[in-house]
């Protein structure tokens, strides 16, 4: 595409070297053209464009760069269009910052670590503030004339509860089988196989039924809440709500929190029952305990307090999951990437908080005498 000619004979230093460019000077040939111009020795050039058939802005830019960096250079034989394009890129040759941050890497890493600490602290503060706001707004809404948006609440209950019945039920059923199976194997060594039923009954109602349901709901719904609200924030829908006089906490957060708080005990109970059924199935088939005596025994060994403890924990789990999801959604700023990060955080934090809360309840209920 381009040929170069040595100086036209006389070799005087003041005379610019002649470079003849030919063919298409376009972006596809930019790499070659850049190399060719860079290989020219120091000094002014006379760039002949007479044989150029096509020129685009990248080609024009490379010619312009040579002219700019080599004082005294000139172009010859340029068509009117080529001159116009050269003028266009020359005009666009302005300082521009390309990288967001040009400081050394270690300094940036240090700053990142510092920023993360500050962010963690302020998120904790903001999170507490958010919980307070949600509680206040919930109470205010409940006593206001308009009242809670029950329509939204029931839709959220359907999405977070009814739609989860399949997966939560299957999981609990299988967990029931696993507990029964493992319990039977271990207790058999003491000839106490019959206590497998105690194990199933007490573990599921008091702890596992509710806890595993909460973890499943956290994975399903905390992420959904964060992504829904986060996307709405990105699209400025949340801002639009404020300008219309709607309180985003009231419209978006309260229905979700109320819905999960109400639905959690219900799916928790359902999950416990399915775990009992799973365990019963294993007892029947492997240990030859007929269903009637299985149920009879469950009723004897599981105290009512186990059931109430499980049911008492569930609404708190639901509220924590919903608030974490909504809080993370509200924290979204700027980019789609942020929605992803916040969604991940919503799931991780809500599962973590559920387990912390469960540990707290375990100690609490034992301390007040429910063993």
């Amino acid at each position, binding site marked *: 595409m381009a040929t170069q000619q040595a100086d036209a004979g006389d070799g005087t230093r003041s005379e610019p070297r002649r470079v003849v460019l030919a063919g298409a000077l*376009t*972006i*596809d040939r*930019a*790499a070659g053209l*850049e190399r060719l111009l860079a290989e020219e020795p120091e000094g002014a050039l006379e760039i002949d464009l007479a044989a150029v058939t*096509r*020129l*685009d*802005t*990248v080609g024009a*830019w*490379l010619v312009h*760069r040579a002219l700019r960096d080599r004082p005294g250079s000139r172009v010859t034989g340029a068509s009117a*269009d*080529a001159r*116009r*394009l050269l003028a*266009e*890129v020359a*005009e*666009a*040759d*302005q*300082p*521009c*910052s*390309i*990288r*967001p*941050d040009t400081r050394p890497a270690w300094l940036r890493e240090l700053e990142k670590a510092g920023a993360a600490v500050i962010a963690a602290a302020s998120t904790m503060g903001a999170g507490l503030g958010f919980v307070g706001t949600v509680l206040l707004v919930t109470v205010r809404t409940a006593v206001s004339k308009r009242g809670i948006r029950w329509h939204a609440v029931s839709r959220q209950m359907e999405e977070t509860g009814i739609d989860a019945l399949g997966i939560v039920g299957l999981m609990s059923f299988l967990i029931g089988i696993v507990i029964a199976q493992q319990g039977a194997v271990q207790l058999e060594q003491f000839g106490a196989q019959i206590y497998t039923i105690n194990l199933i009954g007490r573990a599921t109602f008091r702890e596992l039924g509710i806890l595993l349901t909460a973890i499943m709901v956290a994975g399903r719904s905390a992420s959904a809440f964060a992504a829904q609200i986060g996307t709405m924030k990105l699209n400025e829908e949340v801002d639009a709500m404020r300008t219309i006089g709607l309180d985003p906490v009231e419209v978006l957060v309260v229905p979700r929190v109320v819905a999960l708080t109400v639905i959690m005990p219900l799916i928790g109970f359902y999950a416990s029952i399915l775990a009992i059924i799973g365990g019963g199935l294993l007892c029947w088939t492997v240990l030859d305990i007929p269903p009637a005596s299985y149920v009879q025994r469950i009723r004897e060994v599981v105290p009512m307090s186990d059931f109430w403890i499980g049911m008492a924990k569930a609404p708190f789990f639901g509220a924590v999951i919903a608030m974490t999801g909504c809080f993370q959604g509200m924290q979204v*700023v*700027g*980019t*789609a*990437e942020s929605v992803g990060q916040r969604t991940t955080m919503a799931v991780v934090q809500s599962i973590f908080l559920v387990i912390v809360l469960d540990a707290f309840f375990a100690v609490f209920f034992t301390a007040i005498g429910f063993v």
Partner: protein
Amino acid sequence: MAEAPSPAATPGAAPVISVRGLVNRFGSQLVHDGLDLDVMEGEILGVVGGSGSGKSVLMRSIIGLQTPVAGHITVFGEEMTDPSRDLLAVSRRWGVLFQAGALFSGLTVAENVQVPLREHLALSETLMDEIAAYKIAMVGLPGEAGAKYPAQLSGGMRKRAALARALAMDPALLFLDEPTAGLDPPGAAAFDELIATLRDTMRLTIFLITHDLDTLMRICDRVAVIAEKRVLATGTVAELTRLDHPWIRDYFLGPRGRAAAGARLAHAGARGS
């Protein structure tokens, strides 16, 4: 019903885009019904039509993002409705500016401009940075904007940044969906000039959706009017204003159309004297 005037482009030029019998449907809503359109090489074709008349959908069909129910679309001779088409090769030769910008939110403006360059070419890092810098200046963005993320830009700046990305590969064909919407009037005028310069110097073909009557009158070689689910008429603005169709008359001879045309005449008069 108005007659479609014959294309006023350079005689003998081959159509870069040719659409025949296009039918698009969303559920029960028929958006296009037997739409025909040709875009000639080296022309700026303005596409106008009411909101929701299917301009953006037409553009999406042409660039292969929307599979039409029926019809044929060729771009650079490549059949776009054929599932085995070579989309990558065609996409190297076009640049697309979406109505909402569609910048990659996780990348800075300069990185956005460099995405197609990195994908398709092996250029030196310096040259890539320089290309990003001059494209950013060309579309009228200040130098600091290069290192900013899209979320940190104003609406109009985002439009310009998106145009810089569309222009990154120096494409032979440019799709612009309302490029001047949301720009300040001097900015919009500079935009028009930039587009006209690119067309003149590089023989760019431009498919330009716009509601901006000034843009239509200043730089478009031909205008296609989309209404009643098809291209109702094509021709220069002068030819279209002579047609006797209520919608077209309203569009070009309504108060805004007359104002734009008047300004255009005054401008030409001032230049002539």
